[in-house]
C-alpha cells in the first residue's frame, strides 16, 4: 500500500523514515525541488512523480514536513487522515527533541526510532477505520426506491407525480403571493376558529390550509419575491455593511495611493495592537504572560493583514490571481508560527513576503547568454533566439538592442526577418541593420529577408542554414506580433518553433500589462504545446520586459510573468536607444513591490 513515509526537517535532515519497498528514483526530493521550493500549486497536497504519488503535510511550528509516497495507480483516500494523525502523534511525542535539534547546545542527534511502533499503530487504526467505513457502505446496498429503475414502475411513477404535484402547488403558491395573502387575510380577518372549522369540515380544503402554511415557510426558505418584500431591511443592512467595508478600502486606495507606505504601516500597527489586546488575558500577570510567551498565528489572525498585502500587490500591478496565490502560500507558511507579543505581525508578514518574492524572482536557469552562445558555437552552429509576443510590445526594437549588445561583444549576428505579415516590418529591420553597421566598426551584422507573405518557418530555417554556412555566431529571429487568441497565427508560430527549435524562445512583454500578462503567457505556452505535434514541445525560455522606464514602481508585471512561466527575465528594456537594455535587478523590484 504505502511505499515510504518520511518525516524530515525543512532543512533536509531526515528524522524518521520507513520504506516498505525499494523506490526507484527519489520522489520526495523531486517533490521538494519542483513544488515546495518553487512555491507553486499550494491548493492541492498531491504530487505525481514517475510511478509514484506523493502527499505531504507541514508542521510549521516545528519546521517539520511529513511525506507519504505510494504507487500512482493506488487510491488511498485515507492518506490525508493518516498524515494528520501521524503529525499530531509525532509532534506530541517528539516536540522536545525537535526543539533540541535547533538548539545550538545539542551535540547529539536524538533518536526517533521509537516512533516505529506508534506509526504502525496509527496506520493500522486509520486503515481499519477506513475499511470498516467501506464495508458499511458496501453492506447496505442501494434501496430499490433510490434507483432510477424504480421511477419507471407504476408505484414509482405515481409517487413521482405526487411529488411533482406538491412541488407544483408550492410553485403556484410562490407565483401567486397576492392570492395567498388574500386567503390568509380573510382567515385572519375572520374568526380564528373558522379556520379550524373549515379545516375540519371540508377535507378537501385541508390541503389548502396546509399548503397556505407551507407557503409561509416556502416564503421564508424559497420564495425570492417574498424575501424581497419581507427582508428588504435585511438586504439594506447587508448592503450597508458591504458598503462600509469597501468604502474604507476604496478611500485608502483612491486618496492615498502615493503615500501608501505610511498608510499601510499605520494600519498594520493598529491591527497588531488590537490583536495583542484581544489575546491579552485580564490582569497584570496575564498581560506579562502574553507578552513574553507570545501567541501562535492562526488563519483568522492572518486573514486581514494578508488581504491588505494582496490589495497592495494588486495595486503594484501584480495580476489578481497571482497575488491571491502568493498571499495564500505565505499565509500557509506562517500558520502555527509563534510570535512575541510585541512583535509586529506586519513585519513578520513583510519578511516572509520578501523571502517568497525573492524565491519567485530568482531565476532557476542561467541567464548568461554569452556563455550559451560560446557553447553553441563550439559545436559549429549559430546560437538562435526567437522573439515572440503580441503586437506593439517592442519585439523588433528590443531585438535590435540585443543585437547591439552582441555586436559590442564581437559576435557576428544575422537577423532573420520573419515578420512577413505587417507591412514595413522588413524595412524597419533594414534601417536598424544600417544603423547598427554604422555604429559598430567591424560591421558584422546582416539581414536575411525574403519579402512578405511567405511562410515564416521556412524563412527562419533558410536563415539558420545561411548563418551556419557563413560563420555567423548568432541568428536573431524576428516574428510577427500576434494576439494570443488568433489561432492561425499561433499555429504558424508553433510551426516556426518546432521546425527550427531555437536555442532561446524569448517572450517580449510590456511592463505596463496587468492581468493580461497571465493570459498572454499561458496562451503562448499552450499554443506551442498544442500545435507543435511533438512529444516534448518547447516552451518560452525567457522573458524580455519592455517599457520598464514607463511604470515607476508598479513593477508587478515582472512578478506575474516570472510566476506564471517560472522563467527568468533575461533583459529589461528601459528606453529608446540601442544602449537601453539592462539586466533585471531582483532587489530593486522587490523593494518597489513592497514599498
Amino acid at each position, binding site marked *: 500500500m504505502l511505499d515510504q513515509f518520511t518525516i524530515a526537517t525543512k532543512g533536509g535532515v531526515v528524522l524518521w523514515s520507513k520504506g516498505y519497498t525499494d523506490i526507484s528514483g527519489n520522489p520526495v526530493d523531486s517533490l521538494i525541488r519542483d513544488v515546495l521550493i518553487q512555491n507553486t500549486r499550494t491548493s492541492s497536497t498531491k504530487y505525481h512523480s514517475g510511478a509514484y504519488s506523493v502527499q505531504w503535510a507541514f508542521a510549521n511550528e516545528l519546521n517539520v514536513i511529513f511525506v507519504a509516497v505510494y504507487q500512482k495507480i493506488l487510491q488511498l483516500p485515507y492518506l490525508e487522515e493518516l498524515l494528520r494523525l501521524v503529525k499530531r502523534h509525532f509532534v506530541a511525542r517528539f516536540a522536545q527533541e525537535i526543539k533540541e535539534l535547533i538548539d545550538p547546545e545539542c551535540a*547529539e542527534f536524538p533518536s526517533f526510532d521509537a516512533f516505529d511502533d506508534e506509526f504502525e499503530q496509527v496506520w493500522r487504526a486509520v486503515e481499519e477505520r477506513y475499511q470498516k467505513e467501506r464495508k458499511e457502505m458496501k453492506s447496505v446496498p442501494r434501496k430499490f426506491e433510490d434507483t432510477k429503475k424504480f421511477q419507471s414502475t407504476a408505484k414509482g411513477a405515481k409517487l413521482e407525480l405526487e411529488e411533482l404535484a406538491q412541488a407544483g402547488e408550492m410553485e403556484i403558491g410562490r407565483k401567486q403571493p397576492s392570492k395567498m395573502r388574500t386567503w390568509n387575510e380573510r382567515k385572519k380577518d375572520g374568526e380564528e376558529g373558522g379556520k379550524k372549522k373549515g379545516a375540519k369540515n371540508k377535507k378537501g380544503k385541508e390541503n389548502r390550509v396546509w399548503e397556505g402554511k407551507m407557503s409561509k415557510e416556502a416564503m421564508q426558505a424559497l420564495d425570492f419575491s417574498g424575501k424581497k418584500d419581507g427582508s428588504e431591511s435585511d438586504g439594506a443592512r447587508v448592503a450597508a455593511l458591504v458598503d462600509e467595508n469597501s468604502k474604507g478600502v476604496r478611500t485608502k486606495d483612491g486618496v492615498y495611493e502615493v503615500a501608501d507606505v505610511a498608510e499601510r504601516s499605520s494600519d498594520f500597527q493598529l491591527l497588531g495592537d488590537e490583536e495583542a489586546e484581544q489575546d491579552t488575558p485580564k490582569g497584570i500577570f496575564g498581560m506579562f504572560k502574553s507578552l513574553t510567551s507570545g501567541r501562535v498565528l492562526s488563519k483568522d489572525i492572518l486573514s486581514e493583514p494578508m488581504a491588505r498585502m494582496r490589495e497592495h500587490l494588486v495595486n503594484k500591478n501584480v495580476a489578481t490571481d497571482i497575488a491571491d496565490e502568493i498571499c495564500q502560500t505565505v499565509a500557509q507558511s506562517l500558520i502555527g508560527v509563534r510570535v*512575541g507579543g510585541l512583535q509586529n505581525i506586519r513585519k513578520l508578514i513583510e519578511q516572509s513576503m520578501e523571502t517568497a518574492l525573492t524565491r519567485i524572482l*530568482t531565476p532557476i536557469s542561467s541567464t548568461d547568454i554569452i*556563455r550559451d552562445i560560446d557553447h553553441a558555437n563550439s559545436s559549429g552552429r549559430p546560437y538562435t533566439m526567437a522573439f515572440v509576443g503580441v503586437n506593439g510590445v517592442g519585439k523588433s526594437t528590443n531585438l535590435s538592442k540585443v543585437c547591439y549588445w552582441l555586436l559590442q561583444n564581437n559576435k557576428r549576428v544575422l537577423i532573420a526577418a520573419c515578420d512577413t505579415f505587417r507591412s514595413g516590418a522588413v524595412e524597419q529591420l533594414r534601417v536598424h541593420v544600417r544603423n547598427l553597421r554604422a555604429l559598430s566598426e567591424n560591421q558584422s551584422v546582416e539581414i536575411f529577408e525574403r519579402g512578405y507573405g511567405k511562410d515564416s518557418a521556412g524563412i527562419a530555417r533558410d536563415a539558420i542554414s545561411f548563418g551556419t554556412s557563413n560563420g555567423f555566431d548568432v541568428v536573431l529571429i524576428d516574428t510577427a506580433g500576434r494576439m494570443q487568441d488568433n489561432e492561425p497565427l499561433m499555429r504558424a508560430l508553433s510551426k516556426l518553433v518546432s521546425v527550427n527549435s531555437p536555442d532561446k524562445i524569448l517572450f517580449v512583454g510590456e511592463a505596463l500589462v496587468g492581468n493580461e500578462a497571465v493570459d498572454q503567457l499561458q496562451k503562448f505556452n499552450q499554443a506551442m504545446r498544442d500545435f507543435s505535434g511533438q512529444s516534448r514541445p518547447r516552451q518560452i525560455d525567457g522573458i524580455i520586459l519592455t517599457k520598464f522606464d514607463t511604470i515607476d514602481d508598479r513593477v508587478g508585471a515582472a512578478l506575474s510573468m516570472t510566476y506564471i512561466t517560472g522563467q527568468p527575465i533575461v533583459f529589461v528594456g528601459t528606453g529608446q536607444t540601442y544602449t537601453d537594455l*539592462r539586466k533585471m535587478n531582483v532587489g530593486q523590484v522587490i523593494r518597489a513591490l513592497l514599498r
Partner: protein
Amino acid sequence: MADGMESTGMSGLVLGGLVLLALGLAGWYLLQQQSAAISKKSLAIASGSSSISHGSSSKQPKVVITGLMNTGKTALWCHLRFSQTSVKSAAPMTQTSMALNIAEAFINETRALLVDVPGHQKFHFDRTTQLAQARAVVFVVDSAQMAKNVRETAEGLYEVLANEHVQEQEVPVLVVCNKQDDPLALANTRIQVLLEDEIDRLRGSRQAGLDSVQDTANDDAAAEERTRDFLGFEGKRFAFEDVVSPVQFNEATMVVGHDAGGLEQIERWIADALQN
C-alpha cells in the same frame, strides 16, 4: 512654612512618580527585548530565514556551506555538528533541503556558526546574504557527477569567489570533493583543473554581461564592480592561486551510518580559518 512643607512633599511625589515612570520604562524595554528575541527565534525555527543574523554579526564565526544540489552539504553539516559525540555513525540521513540549516558547534575547540545553504537555484539570494558575513566558505562538490555538472559548479564557485565580501576580507574557501567512495569519482586535482578551465571561460562571458537596471545612475561604481568581478589576471589562464582568497581542495566522503572520510582535515581547516 506650611507652603515649604507642601512643596517638598509635592516635589517628593513628583520625584517618586518619575522613578516609577523610569522603572516602568525600563521594564517595558526589557520585555520588548525579550519578546523580540522570542519572535526572532521562532522565526528562525519557522522559516529558516536568513534575516535572523542581519544585526550585529560580522564578528560571528560564520562558516557557510554551499554548493550544488545533492552534493552532500546537509550531510556535511550534520557530521560537523554532531561530531563531538563518540558515535559518529549517528549522523542522520538527508534529503533535499528547503530551508537553511543554522547551528552552533565547537570544532576542535573553536566556536563556529555553521550555515548550510540549500543548493536549489532559488536559494542563491540567501547565499549572497550569508556570504556577506562569512568567515570561511566550504564549497561542496559531487566528484562523481563532475563531468556532467561542471558548468553549474563553476558558476557557483565563481559567484562565491567573486563575491564582494569574500574578495575584500580574503575569506578562505575550501572545495570539498565529496562522494569519493563512488567508483566514478574524479580526484581532487582533476576537479581543480576542470573548474579552472571552466572559470577561465566563464569570467570572459561575465565581463560581457549587461548592467543591471539600477546601475545607470552611478556608472563608476558599476565599472568598479566589474573589474572586481574579474578573477585572476587578464591575459593569463585562470588558476586558483591567482584569487585573493586562499582556495584549497580536499577529498571527502559522507556516507550515512559510516565514519565520514576526510572529516578530520575539514575540521582542522575550519578551525584554522576561524582562528586567523
